[in-house]
């Protein structure tokens, strides 16, 4: 005698909804370093930044280095005025 066909069920998805996110291209890169204002956005663990900041300022004296430091994981942001004169940003180690 053939086995009775087992009942099948529709089972639902437990996952949440990913909202669509617009993906943006990279901003244009710098053509040179000399004469530029590059901002160091330091947040999270500071240790690597101590020698890194020193080397950057020593090896690239023609760059105008600006710095904001925060121990929290979210960085201190540039003001709108500061953005007008900032050419690039290096951020780490948190994001």
């Amino acid at each position, binding site marked *: 005698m053939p086995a009775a066909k087992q009942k099948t069920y529709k089972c639902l998805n437990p996952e949440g909804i990913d909202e669509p996110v617009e993906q943006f291209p990279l901003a244009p890169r710098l053509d040179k370093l000399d004469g530029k204002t590059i901002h160091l956005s330091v947040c999270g663990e500071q240790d690597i930044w101590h020698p890194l900041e020193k080397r950057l300022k020593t090896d690239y004296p023609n760059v105008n280095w600006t710095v904001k430091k925060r121990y929290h994981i979210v960085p201190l942001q540039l003001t709108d005025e500061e953005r007008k004169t900032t*050419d*690039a*940003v290096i951020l780490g180690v948190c994001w």
Partner: protein
Amino acid sequence: MPYLADLEQSGIPTVLLHYHEQKGKVLNDLKLYGIPHLRTVEADRKSPGGVEEADRVMPLLLEALTRPATSEEKKGGEWSTKKPRILFEGTIEEAEEFYSQTENITGCLDTPFCRYTDGLPVVIPTEERVMAMLKGTSHKPDEIITLQRDIELSGGDAVRARVKKLKGDPVEFLPMFRRATVEQVAVNAVMAGCKPNQFPVALAIAESGGGTGDGRGGGGAFILSGPVIKEIGLTVTNNIFGQCNPVNKSLARLGSLLWRNLGGYKETVTTIMTVGNPVLNGGMVLGEYTEGLPPGWLGLNEEFGFKKNESVLMNVPVGHSNSAWGIGQEHMPGVYRSLQRTGHGAIARYLGVKGVVGPHNYLEFLCKDIWACREGGFTIGMPPQIAMDMYNYGFKTKQSIYEFFWKKSFEPMSKYRVRGTPDFRTNGWLGTEPISGKPWKDLPDDYMVPAGGDDPFRSFAVFVFNMEETQTARFTGGHHDAYCIDAWR
């Protein structure tokens, strides 16, 4: 990451320096914030002194700012996922196999990680079972989970800051910042083993963010207050932290499933690494025994401004890795009774009340050295007898207990300065001490600081559970955020 996205979109080139173990999470977040091509440089977190590592990463960082963007990096687009409502169709046995599937994760030494579950078998969420669960609420299945009242949420970017949210704001489930419908919560509630009469509680758990915490978990512990406790049969008595009550157990488990499925938690892929939390491995849902409250002591619902007949859920901030359990002085239950009945035993000797009949201040003993190796407040669960003794001693309100503990936690700056967490909490001592309003760096060594947190109410909490034995439970906590269960009926 949103800051980097904003800078790039405004035309300022950026580069991110991060630790190489965080690569999976970084790649995930780049996509979520719309900057998939952002250039990153990986650093080694183990380099002694950091000098050689700084030398290594410096040219990479500068090259990332100057090398012209490739044609691929100049592309835009949209990131989206399509998830079918019906995930699987087949027999129950086949579905059990499907829902228990795993994938190996490199960041976890290629060990299996469950795609849809917390690691244990689940109740299969058939359409019929989910429909039955949905009968436990008046809310529509396709309704997005939103906040049911204006609320000032704990947390925020400055650790201590609180974040104002409005009624109707969609709840985001971390770490993937997903949204969810009532039906999707019902699917997880079925999987956890919940019954329809528990569904309003499940929805309130979802409103609190589920078990997602800050994306690394830590949000799967809750205390309930109000009539709903009796309605659903939550145990608030002996073995309150233990097993075998299906209501406590299934609701507690729900947090883990919401974190995995609504939040999209995947260790080292969508989150940075943590060690996890044994309390939240299975979750924790407690309820308070309001009949055991001394006169004048408010239930948690009333403490948060709700009415006595309103049912409320408070999430307990036990943390994702650094929670503490069983903190405070240990003692045999009988030693407590000896203290209060005849003034004998260790606690009586400590308090200097030998031979004097109680009530005595047991809390004085309990918090002895409690801040010796940790900062912050805590929650105490106590049986009615201890609560009544404390009332008779002089603690006529719960708030008076919170203030007692808070005042006991003060210590000089010289001691506070060498603790483990204030470097972070004070923003490297660059911030302002909240009580004096003065910069942390200007405070003298003898300035007194509360190691127990900034605010007595936020730092501490007391709840009463039913038990004849005289023992207490103490764990990381305090008052966090409260959500109205009745709003989800």
